[in-house]
């Protein structure tokens, strides 16, 4: 009941804003809903946006449960996309199976590697990972900018982007008439693996470390392996999300490949209470809001910024209720700080 109450409040405030801006709230919301689930294309949009969020959300959840506050998914996604692109170009001739797998593996490795230095810095030198992973996001962005201006830019193109990926690398479509692609299945697999992880013995030991590192050490958990392990996993999954965006959705590498998805993934993790079903639900919600928001802009002519505000209000209203039910890592305050940092750093940019 409280959930509905707070959502209703969020919708009401949004409606007020829309009205003040001179738009019809009912029509706007209707457009939003249509854009999220109102047609085959819409559902495809929602799912295809949810997939990378879910994959990243899973990785970050595992880390947050261990008390490691990694917010480097944005940069890891970028590096994964870079890795996928490089592999795709290198394997352009090969049979699609090889090219696709090669790009997938490259993305995973690049993402994990990008997380590895902050991981070691945290494990060995207690360098705050919120800082280090955040800074690495900037490194990745600049690196991407350079790559797209020089090595990867085809001579014919005036703007910074790579050439279109070779056909062998592109992910087949899953649902004709939509942008939904095979990469979504990887996200589903990740969520399934997460569901197994939280019931597993290693998962328990990692969670125990996040709850009480002294107790965990007493029962033989290695702090170094735990910290580095979860950060690599988060990096790997974020890298894979990058592969999914490049090989499945955009089909080429360009500067806005991430456009805040990495940061939203962190929010998805926290909003989802660091639990498998929660992460899935949160990623679907956020994706639905985004897809709906874009549609609302286009059909009801709501300015993009207002649409963002409405999305944020609805998100906030869900978060307000979900807050108390958050799986309580002992450092849950830290999880919230990490989420705030990532929200500030990844102020929504205009995605596709």
């Amino acid at each position: 009941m409280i959930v509905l109450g707070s959502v209703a409040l969020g919708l009401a405030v949004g409606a007020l804003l829309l009205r003040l801006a001179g738009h019809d709230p009912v029509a706007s919301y209707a457009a939003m809903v249509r854009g999220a689930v109102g047609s085959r294309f819409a559902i495809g949009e929602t799912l295809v946006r949810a997939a990378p969020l879910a994959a990243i959300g899973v990785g970050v959840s595992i880390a947050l449960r261990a008390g490691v506050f990694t917010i480097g998914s944005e940069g890891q996604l970028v590096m994964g996309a870079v890795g996928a692109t490089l592999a795709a170009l290198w394997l352009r001739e090969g049979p699609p199976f090889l090219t696709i797998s090669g790009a997938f593996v490259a993305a995973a490795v690049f993402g994990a590697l990008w997380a590895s230095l902050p991981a070691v810095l945290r494990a060995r030198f207690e360098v705050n990972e919120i800082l280090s992973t955040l800074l690495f996001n900037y490194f990745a962005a600049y690196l991407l900018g350079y790559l797209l201006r020089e090595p990867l830019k085809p001579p014919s193109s005036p703007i910074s982007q790579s050439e279109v990926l070779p056909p062998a690398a592109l992910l087949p479509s899953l649902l004709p008439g939509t942008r939904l692609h095979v990469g979504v299945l990887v996200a589903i697999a990740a969520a399934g693996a997460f569901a197994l992880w939280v019931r597993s013995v290693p998962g328990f030991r990692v969670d125990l470390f996040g709850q009480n590192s002294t107790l965990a050490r007493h029962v033989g958990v290695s702090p170094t392996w735990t910290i580095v392990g979860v950060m690599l996993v988060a990096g790997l999954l974020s890298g894979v999300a990058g592969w999914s965006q490049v090989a499945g959705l955009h089909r080429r590498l360009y500067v806005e490949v991430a456009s805040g998805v990495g940061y939203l993934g962190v929010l998805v993790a926290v909003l989802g209470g660091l639990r498998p079903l929660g992460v899935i639900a949160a990623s679907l919600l956020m994706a639905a809001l985004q897809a709906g928001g874009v549609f609302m802009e286009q059909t009801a002519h709501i300015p993009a910024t207002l649409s963002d505000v409405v999305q944020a209000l609805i998100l906030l209203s869900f978060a307000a209720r979900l807050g108390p039910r958050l799986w309580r890592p002992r450092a849950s305050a830290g999880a919230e700080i990490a989420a705030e940092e990532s929200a500030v750093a990844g102020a929504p940019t205009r995605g596709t």
Partner: protein
Amino acid sequence: MGTTYGREQVPALEVREISRSFGSLRALDRVDLTLRTGEVHALVGENGAGKSTLAKIVAGSLRPDIGVMRLFGEPFRPRSRSEGAAAGVAYVRQQLSLVRGLTLAENLQLGRPGATPMFEPTRAAQELQEVSERFGLRLHPDHLIDDLPLAERQKAEIVMAVAWGAGVLLLDEPSSALGPQEVDALLHLCSSLRDSGVAILFISHRLREIAAIADRVTVLRQGRVMASAVEVAEFDPHEIATLMIGDLPVSTRGRPVPKQGTVRLEANGLQVRVPHGPGLRGVSLSVRGGEIVGVVGVAGSGQDELAQVLTGLIHPDVGRVSIDGNDVTGSARGAMEAGVSYLPGDRSDGLALELSVADNVTAKRPTDPRLARHGLRLPKAIRDFARTLLVSFEVRPPVPEMPARLLSGGNQQKLLAARELETTPSVLVAVGPTKGLDPVATKVMRDRIFDVATRGGAVVVISADMDEVLDLAHRVVVLSAGDVTDEFPAWECTPARLGAAMAGITA
């Protein structure tokens, strides 16, 4: 020593019939105390005697259940620490209250009770200068609190309190984190303050310092005044120590002595440096299978560090720990594999309070084939296993799914025991194992600990409870300021010898 005042002088502080309970624990029981102006009045007692509780009541952070107080003759009923401070009672604790990130001058001007938040640098600097000179200190107005060593911060806080008009100063264990020269400087300052008319309540268990600075001494034990306002001339440390600890049961060992085997736990030359406090300054210990060693000492003598080094959670700066011949120095994992069980002094170190009781009690054996298959945990099996264990260790309520934080303190202690004593360890390190347990549960826990020795384990019990140590231990080791100051078989233990060693006076 101090100047004597005539009886016409109104006492700075009068405490009458003050009592305070926390639930069923009677922390203070009809305490009377009179503090004169221009005196250093020492309040001594063991841990848990009620010294800090009394100080908090006088300061205003805590309210008494019954009793009255008078400050310079007027009724005194502060409703908060700041009210107390405004009335002139300053409470200086170990966690100092000066604001970090600000300078001394800023703290002086902005920390004054009732100050407006307007900072006037020149006036503040002047004030600081005056008060520094008055008490022979060298305080620089622009120095940041953060840059000052602890001893300096403490002195600064004390003189600032006086500058703000405090007539009564409550110093709670002021010397516990100080080295010998710093202690001397502190005592010198107290002396100057006393001579200028400030009334100081000096709370400490360090009898040597008290002998040096106090005019009169009051002894508290378990919330009651055992000796009131003893003049320093009549001060006998051994007698005071006996009053602090009380009479020990004459025959305390009704237990059969287990056969003692080879040395199982060996620690050599342990040194641990810590930011505040003495740490460990060269402690060696060896314990045989079947033997129980009791480690006693006042709080802050290095007990926690010792426990953490013996269990591999801390790597000592110097020294080795080995169990059954295996070097486990600094390796918690190694210690676990060698069969160490640990009951920490702070329960929250040993429990994951947000996880369920079942998770906590099975945390040492997650891969047990009864509890997990193919790497996946079996929730029902875990619950059943946990329930059996909970019942046998009398954890109430025995609900495996419940989050551990909902258990009462005593039951959390039993939960710890359920996990750590479920299988017989090779070495048991127990810190304050019966804290918070009612008498029946206490007996059961002690029996279990004794049982570990009967089955060949080497046991170290670190405790502030004399009855406990004498009930269980074959040998007593006294820890004081990071060193072992005395060691003797349990039957040679007398209150005086124990109290003196704990207070830092070697027999």
